[in-house]
């Protein structure tokens, strides 16, 4: 199963290496990891998306991360109500007669075109991973020349709904 784990870490040299090292040492499977400064000076926030077999495996990941001296806080936010976003840049082949079609796909996904050349265009899309995934699938037949994804970054919503709610809304 997929888990989203949020870390607050001290901004010390080598901290990212410590985290990724731990994942490989403990044979944990990371899907994505994103890192950046946080609201506190000297601290960064890391969001990891991992695949685990069961809940005891994800508990083990959280505990091992917590043991790291540079890690201040670890939360598995998967079951919380969260905001999660990923950004992808997609350079897709676009000849004059496919261009409009591509535009028509972009619109409902609220993606945007950020660069255009003679035979390609670059689309930027943000959203939850599933949405990004779905968009990539749709656009694939036109020929993806380059693709770059940031991986998910996330944190809990301002207000938490009490019960775990399954998402019934469309991914778009």
């Amino acid at each position: 199963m997929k888990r989203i784990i949020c870390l607050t870490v001290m901004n010390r040299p080598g901290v990212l290496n410590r985290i990724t090292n731990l994942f490989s040492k403990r044979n944990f499977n990371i899907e994505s990891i994103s890192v950046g400064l946080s609201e506190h000076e000297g601290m960064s926030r890391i969001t990891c998306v991992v695949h685990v077999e069961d809940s005891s495996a994800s508990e083990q990941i959280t505990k091992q991360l917590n043991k790291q001296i540079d890690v201040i806080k670890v939360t598995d936010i998967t079951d919380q109500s969260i905001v999660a976003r990923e950004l992808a840049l997609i350079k897709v082949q676009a000849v004059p007669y496919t261009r409009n079609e591509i535009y028509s796909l972009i619109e409902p996904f609220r993606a945007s075109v950020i660069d255009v050349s003679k035979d390609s265009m670059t689309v930027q899309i943000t959203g939850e991973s599933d949405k990004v995934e779905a968009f990539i699938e749709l656009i694939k037949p036109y020929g993806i020349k380059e693709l770059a994804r940031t991986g998910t970054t996330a944190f809990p919503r301002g207000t938490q709904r009490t019960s775990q709610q399954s998402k019934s809304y469309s991914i778009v």
Partner: protein
Amino acid sequence: MLQEAALTETKTETYPVTGADLLLRALEKENVEVIFGYPGGAVLPLYDKLYHSKILHVLPRHEQGGIHAAEGYARISGKPGVVIATSGPGATNIVTGLADAMMDSLPLIVFTGQVATGVIGSDAFQEADILGITTPITKYNYQVRSIEDIPRIVKEAFYIASTGRPGPVLIDIPKDIAAGVSDQPEKETEVNLPGYQPTLKPNYLQIRKLTEAVSRSKKPVILAGAGVLHGRASKELKEYAEQQQIPVIHTLLGLGGFPASHPLFIGMAGMHGCYAANMGLTECDLLINIGARFDDRLTGNLQHFAPHAKVAHIDIDPAEIGKNVPTSIPIVADAKEALEQLILQDGKPPAHKEWMETISRWQEEYPYYYDKESVQLKPQKVMEMLHSKTEGDAIVVTDVGQHQMWAAQYYRFNNADRWVTSGGLGTMGFGFPASIGAQLANPEACVLAICGDGGFQMSTQELAIIQELNLPVKIIIFNNMALGMVRQWQEIFYESRFSHSKIPLQPSFVKLAEAYGIKGYVIQSEEEAEEVLDEVLHNREPVLIDFRVDPDENVYPMIAPGKGLHEMAGVKP
């Protein structure tokens, strides 16, 4: 004394000072008595300052020997062992020791030299990315980037290494930082590590839960690991076990935490543990793990491990709880604090007469055994003799292999901090240098370095330290002309195809000892053993004894890989 001197020195010292000065001063503040170090280009600024230092510096003849010696010192003294190695090859030579200390939770402070800051990353002469190499095998590591950071980093390193679950901390010091000059007065530093706050006090509710579980239990056992020794909790363990009348099983690394002569002691469990202990774990209905990490050599196949037991686990490292064995009563705490709380509860002891009888029967029916009539010198017999002739109170340090298991089985420890062995990593070459550190930590004790003929040859060069410091270590070689443990596995699992495990061609160990001015003996029989041991065990001289033991002897009982603890082979002759 040493500390006072250091303090006055600090006050009168004038500035500027070099990085190396700051470093030595920081070590004096931590009351470091001994450094195991080996010089080289990148640590020359440091060695220049050591020239005048009062701290004892021990020069191993290989950095690996140095770090194993520091491990032995740490295990016996309870204080971090301090190591210095130069950059590049010096640093990579200590990698095995770091991994070993990490596995067995030994506190070490390891300084490595590094090339100057300006050339880091350029593949400079003797450059190695030691931070990258050691990140997975240290509790923490640092590279010093500014001279003024040295006092803080050293203080933090000692704190990290010796608190919580102990472990090795490495500090990498570029040469220009050690040689560089600071004109700022040294600041008093406090340890401030918001991400590192070990939990020492147990949760009261869990303590209650465990107390109730004990009262209701019919078949309780305590499994005591090295956490009891690291937490200095053997007194409390004994008090608690006696109060509740719970029988105690030890892991390999926990030996000595509970007296082997105590009526509640069952024995060591695990791959070569005794029948009663392994059956105790299999049949119990309540398993109280105190400071053991359910290592696979202890548990055997997890599917068959303690199938009927409710598991309680007391550990200072929360990540160990539930890692291998599902646990219903997790107690994150220091072993001593948890035991004190449990004793205070003074719960109703379990009604477990039948259980105690069953355990006694197992113990009587299936003790460790060997052929006492054999004409060959049996290694088990030698261990028994060593035990009785040292009244069970020597410090026993072992290498890795069959001899290690015989030592664990036959040397019945009644006291804590008498046992040093490489458990988690199983590092051949560990024992002999570790015995040197153990002797330095406890100069009065009789230290036995129990080595195999194979493993001893991985660190013979450290005979030089014995000679130099005239340390009265008793080097005991169990010479079976083989990499015995490998030979045993090949006999059992590979139809006796002894592929590269027999080493009939051997140096004369006695002459080797003599080359270092150390007396040596070859012993082939019990009579000779009687005579020589009486002579050498009680004097203050180093000695090497080459025991020619039965080359075909195997360690039993044994649990084959993949089998459960109840599936021991060789429980009876």
